[in-house]
């Protein structure tokens, strides 16, 4: 079943290098112990993913990815790190049972996924996507996906209000 019938095209080469980056970033993140390192390596993965999106003709999404993840989420996390103390850093207590079981679970899950992916029978020809990626997305968003779009605005508002409400310090009642 492991018949990797790989067509070494240019796209594949690009994919392969970006994929390596993404995986390396992710795996490093898992192995690092210092939080900042972890954040940075994950940011690296996010960027690699943005590259993959471009490969997949999703330029707008790639742009948003960089903006949102590298720009917003990572920064948010770094703020978080700065606001909290990390005394115990670098000395993760060994939880061998948890880690072993987690590894087994994840590997099994991956096995199942991989098996299903290998078994799937995908069409080979690829229909072209609209050229003007951004515009097409915009049109769809405001027509067919208008309801979720509106909802997501509510969601963001709520998240914003909520985050503020939670994070702000209450003044002393007196």
């Amino acid at each position, binding site marked *: 079943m492991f018949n990797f019938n790989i067509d070494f095209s240019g796209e594949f080469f690009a994919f392969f290098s970006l994929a390596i980056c993404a995986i390396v970033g992710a795996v490093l*993140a898992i192995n690092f112990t210092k939080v900042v390192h972890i954040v940075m390596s994950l940011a690296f993965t996010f960027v690699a993913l943005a590259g*993959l999106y471009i490969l*997949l003709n*999703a330029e707008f999404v790639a742009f948003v990815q960089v903006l*949102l993840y590298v720009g*917003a989420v990572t920064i948010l996390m770094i703020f978080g790190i700065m606001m909290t103390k990390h005394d115990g850093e670098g000395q993760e207590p060994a939880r061998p049972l948890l880690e072993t079981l987690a590894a087994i679970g*994840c590997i099994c899950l991956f096995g199942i996924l991989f098996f299903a992916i290998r078994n799937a029978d*995908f069409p080979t020809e690829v229909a072209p*996507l609209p050229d003007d990626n951004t515009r097409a*997305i915009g049109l769809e968003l405001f027509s067919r996906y208008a309801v979720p779009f509106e909802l997501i605005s509510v969601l963001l508002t709520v998240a914003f209000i909520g985050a503020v409400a939670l994070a702000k310090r209450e003044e002393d009642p007196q």
Partner: protein
Amino acid sequence: MTMLASYLTLAAVLFCVGLYGVLTKRNAIVVLLCIELMLNAVNLNLIAFSKYGVTPSLTGQIFSLFTMTVAAAEAAVGMAVLIVWYRNRATVNVDEFDELRG
């Protein structure tokens, strides 16, 4: 192996790595980040399908945009919660979240 399968496999790898991170990392912030990684894997899936799927469409990309937004909101709220907790307990280690148990 088609390109699609490669993308999907990559996404699966990232998803599982993210999951492993969620399960094992001690620092709460890292746990939140690993969730983001899982969501990113999903996004990769969606975008790959959007190009190579049965009926290629922009839907996948749009879906991933929603996902990202949601993920960001979730990260923000998660962070806020974490900060509140940190104020009370002065730690961000997940294994010290054990006041509620039994």
